[in-house]
């Protein structure tokens, strides 16, 4: 439908955003690539020298590298699964006629409003602490041994905290999608006595395909860069992911060269993840 005229206009409209993002990407990226070939320690300035691929070699051969890669994928995968499955269930529940719905809705989406640093601190010290945490108190009340989350299940603990923040986001998006479904259709289905399962399979699922795709894409971008929850809870040793490893090089070792190499590797890996993601779900975005 687009004419030549609108196409030109379209390009002009897109140009500022593309230009801004291009600069935002290329300038730091260029500098990062450049730094990644240098021996450049922030605490030892003036002694930069070109060392080729040494930074990459050290980053890739770091014993923590493979586990960081695994942890990154585990965090993204589990939180996505929790927030999509939980989000669909919660959205279906909140779509029902219930009393005080807007209040319930606010309570459910509230964790999304909390800064990641704050939620990590609260969960670590006030919820999951094995001595003074609420969960420990609960399990003692039921005569159970309190779980020592960050000692025995650091990755699971991190996943729970991150999921707590992103489940509300998924719920919100999916709930609004459900509410846009045709009321009459819903009623008709109910009248006909459509069994709940086939109602879900043939009406809810197709309707939610698009919003789920949007949730997956946006969440993946943020989940690949989960950092505060790992850093603040001090679980970087065993639950550390790629951003944590880069942080470790950059702000603990102050090794700018190593951190730059790590950043480049993280970008490449993230793009691979995104590529497969798009192949898997990209078609839902058509139309």
């Amino acid at each position: 439908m687009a004419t030549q005229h609108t196409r030109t206009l379209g390009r002009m409209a897109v140009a500022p955003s593309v230009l801004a993002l291009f600069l935002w990407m290329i300038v730091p990226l260029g500098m990062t690539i450049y730094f990644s070939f240098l021996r450049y320690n922030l605490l030892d300035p003036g002694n930069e020298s070109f060392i080729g691929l040494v930074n990459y070699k050290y980053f890739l051969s770091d014993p923590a590298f493979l586990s960081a890669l695994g942890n990154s994928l585990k965090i993204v995968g589990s939180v996505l699964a929790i927030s999509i499955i939980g989000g669909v269930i919660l959205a279906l529940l909140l779509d029902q006629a219930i009393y005080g719905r807007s209040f319930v809705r606010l309570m459910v989406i509230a964790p999304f409003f909390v800064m990641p640093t704050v939620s990590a601190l609260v969960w670590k010290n006030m919820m999951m602490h094995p001595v003074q945490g609420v969960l420990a108190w609960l399990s003692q009340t039921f005569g159970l041994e309190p779980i020592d989350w960050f000692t025995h299940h650091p990755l699971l603990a991190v996943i729970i905290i991150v999921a707590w923040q992103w489940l509300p986001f998924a719920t919100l998006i999916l709930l609004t999608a459900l509410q846009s479904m045709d009321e009459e259709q819903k009623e008709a289905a109910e009248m006909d006595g459509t069994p709940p399962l086939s109602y879900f399979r043939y009406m809810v699922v197709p309707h939610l395909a698009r919003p789920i795709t949007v949730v997956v894409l946006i969440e993946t971008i943020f989940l690949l860069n989960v950092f505060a929850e790992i850093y603040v809870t001090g679980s970087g040793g065993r639950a550390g992911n790629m951003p944590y490893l880069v942080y470790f090089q950059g702000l603990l070792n102050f090794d700018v060269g190593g951190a730059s190499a790590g950043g480049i590797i993280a970008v490449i890996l993230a793009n691979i993840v995104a590529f497969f993601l798009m192949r898997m779900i990209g078609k839902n975005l058509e139309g």
Partner: protein
Amino acid sequence: MARAVPKSRRWLMTIIAWAIAFVIFFPILWTIITSFKTEGDAVLSPPDLLTAGWTTESYGVVQDRSNYFKFAMNSVMLALGSTAFALLLAIPAAWAMAFAPGKRTKDLLMWMLSTKMMPPVGALIPIYLIFRDLHLLDTRGGIITVLMLLNLPIIIWMLYTYFKEIPGEILEASRMDGASVGKELIYVLAPMAIPGIASTVLLNVILAWNEAFWTLSLTTKNAAPLTQFIASYSSPEGLFWAKLSAASTMAIAPILVLGWFAQKQLVRGLTFGAVK
């Protein structure tokens, strides 16, 4: 909800929903409760809810110590400023991608998202050096620009999916009538797009409000938002739970209140868009 639902089922659903909501909201509730305890009571286990000496002392301490209003004002300005700035760039871009898509539009969208994939720490030194040379460290303008660029891809994405929902025939019709592109934007598109824009704004205000890495790294005092206010209360030597809880409550409160007033708008807006 006009559906006729049996009372018993409605009550059952209500109870289940409230129970789940309570569990999800509990950590926040607990933070608020803790903010009214003394430091000593805050770490007691089992928690002492009945005989605890309730006090607003922590809020007093926080008030005395930090200029909460300054931090909060900066948060508001950074969140609103960066979102508004991003909208300025994103609306035309999303409009063009939705209504005059080229062959590469989808790739362009993906590329935009991919600019968010670099772990921020990896780019810290380059950005810090650039900011230093442009004298942008600790300026609101500088950090607004960064937050704008950070959120621009998400804003374009969301607007794009909303705009996609607006039926093309309406535009065709207005074009037949000879409406110029400017008029098309203002009179035809804008009214239909406003709910989508509103919900995009809200989500991005939240994201900007909570952004902690760049706001902490690039601001010192003049432009420092609430994330730095929080960082001055977390993990000192000594007990800090009540004070941190008070500070956290104060940092969450504005956005929670905004969320309360906005949620209906948010739900309606999202309904129009991506998610139909």
